């Protein structure tokens, strides 16, 4: 009988592997996700029915918990706006880590009661799960608060934060070690609280633009906590599922860093916050910007042949993708070629812009990736930068003192004309000034991108 359930776990584990493989290719991604979900369903049912020695049932508690959790998860995922997606993923991840933390907490109390494991490797496993789960929990919550704009970087960053973090890590490991050799409710609570503080402090100095990298890293941390919890129950699917996430999450984190041409260390010790001030200081005297009006942009667009739009987080905030699509349609009718240049880290998450543009049915063929876009820019008449900033910053190429120096960017200034849609002259998420705005062929169109795009559309209509 037990063998049957273990086979079910095996099927679930294989489905996880197939799911992850599916998720790494655009053609099979959706099926991959469903496969992984099916694997999870099988694992849950097998765990509910698995014959356990000295089981007390408690199925009412279990079913109520499953129903509440499913309802909250389902409602929050179906209500979230596309701009809120990164925050939600972060919260979900934190809940997974928090779950491992709570589980480790009560397991430790139980083992403590029985007395037999108090100094053994099992208690080490439990405390490791507690430590890792807590870090993931509090770190993800802070990442959520930062992404949601509820907390600004400067509010939570201390001077010499890297050193503070190192010291805090030593203290954290110390208190967890103390709890291992002096098991009591008190030492356990202290270890949990200190671990939570460490998770918070670990994320604190990391700049908001690097949040996706951190969430990916915390995601792999949650996976590891699930895997070590799996050792407690000698449960293979927990070990496999957790480690798969831990390993693939680590690789994904590295890939994301590479897309920004930065190292993980550079992200973690807060490269942006350290050099941002200096970079902003050197670029104050750059002359003045040239503002423009929707009517002028409309005329320019009307007589152009090739237009590339470069969207960024600002477009997501303004929900301007509908207007972008409308402008695209009008221009296409007039025989203008319209493309979209998608930078790999535009928006707050990789793929963020693709999701937004897909939402309004913009065809795949019109989307250019970084390299294609840069090779097209030379003979482009007009580039419309809609809410992007750091990904079109020339300082990344020619200013070694800039904190984003070395990051590949869209070289939009090579087009004949650049129109930047922007709310104000405030710097972008990296907190640095953008010399693009001061270039001769750049015009600034201030205001809400959705509204200014709409104005341009209306002006073009009157030109007929």
């Amino acid at each position: 009988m037990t063998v049957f359930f273990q086979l079910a776990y095996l099927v679930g584990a294989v489905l996880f592997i197939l799911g992850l493989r599916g998720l790494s290719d655009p053609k099979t991604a959706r099926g991959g996700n469903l496969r992984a979900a099916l694997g999870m369903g099988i694992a849950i049912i097998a765990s509910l029915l698995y014959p356990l020695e000295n089981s007390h049932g408690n199925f009412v508690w279990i079913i109520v918990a499953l129903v509440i959790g499913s309802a909250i998860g389902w409602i929050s995922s179906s209500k979230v706006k596309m701009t809120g997606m990164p925050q939600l993923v972060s919260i979900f991840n934190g809940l997974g880590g928090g779950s491992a933390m709570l589980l480790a907490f009560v397991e430790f109390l139980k083992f403590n009661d029985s007395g037999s494991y108090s100094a053994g490797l099992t208690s080490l496993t439990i405390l490791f799960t507690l430590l890792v789960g807590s870090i993931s929990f509090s770190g993800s919550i802070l990442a959520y608060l930062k992404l949601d704009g509820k907390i600004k970087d400067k509010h939570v960053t201390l001077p010499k934060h890297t050193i503070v973090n190192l010291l805090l890590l030593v203290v954290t490991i110390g208190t967890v070690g103390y709890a291992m050799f002096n098991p009591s409710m008190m030492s356990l609570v202290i270890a949990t609280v200190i671990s939570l503080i460490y998770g918070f402090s670990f994320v604190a100095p990391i700049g908001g633009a690097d949040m996706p990298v951190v969430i990916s890293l915390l995601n792999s941390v949650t996976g590891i906590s699930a895997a070590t919890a799996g050792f407690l129950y000698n449960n293979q699917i927990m070990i496999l599922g957790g480690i798969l996430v831990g390993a693939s999450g680590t690789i994904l984190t590295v890939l994301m860093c590479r897309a920004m041409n930065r190292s993980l260390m550079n992200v973690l010790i807060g490269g942006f916050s350290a050099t941002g001030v200096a970079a902003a200081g050197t670029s104050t005297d750059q002359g003045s910007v040239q503002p423009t009006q929707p009517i002028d942009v409309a005329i320019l667009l009307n007589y152009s042949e090739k237009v590339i739009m470069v969207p960024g987080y600002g477009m997501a905030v303004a929900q301007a993708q509908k207007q972008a699509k409308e402008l695209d349609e009008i221009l296409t009718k007039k025989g203008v070629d319209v493309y979209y240049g998608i930078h790999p880290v535009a928006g707050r998450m990789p793929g963020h812009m693709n999701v937004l543009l897909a939402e309004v049915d913009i065809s795949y063929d019109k989307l250019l990736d970084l390299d294609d876009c840069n090779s097209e820019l030379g003979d482009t008449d007009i580039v419309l930068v809609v809410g992007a900033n750091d990904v079109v910053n020339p300082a990344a190429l020619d200013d070694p003192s800039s904190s984003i120096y070395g990051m590949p960017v869209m070289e939009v200034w090579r087009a004949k004309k650049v129109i930047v849609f922007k709310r104000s002259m405030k710097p972008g998420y990296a907190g640095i000034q953008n010399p693009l705005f001061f270039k001769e062929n750049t015009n600034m169109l201030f205001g809400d991108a959705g509204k200014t795009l709409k104005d341009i559309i209306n002006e073009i209509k009157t030109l007929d």
Partner: protein
Amino acid sequence: MQSLTQFLGDNMLSIYLLIFAVFLGFELISKVPSVLHTPLMSGANAISGIVLVGSIIFLRKTDPSETFSLVVGMIAMIMAMINIVGGFAVTNRMLAMFKKKPKQ
């Protein structure tokens, strides 16, 4: 030392599983287009909710008189379940937008 060798001996197969899973995880994700980074992260995140299995086993083994353990275990379970259902659902929503819709 003795407890260590005993632990290793008892868990040898699980340790094999752990090491192989590390390599498998690395191999699975070595080449992913950046468009898929977010859905992949979100999907993998849902899988890490597998810790739910642990909370199910924990609750099933807990004596009904231990209210504290029951309540904490139940909260752990709700959290993991939100992670799972929300994670898979939100990934599905993201990926649904990439699907080519029929042209009118």
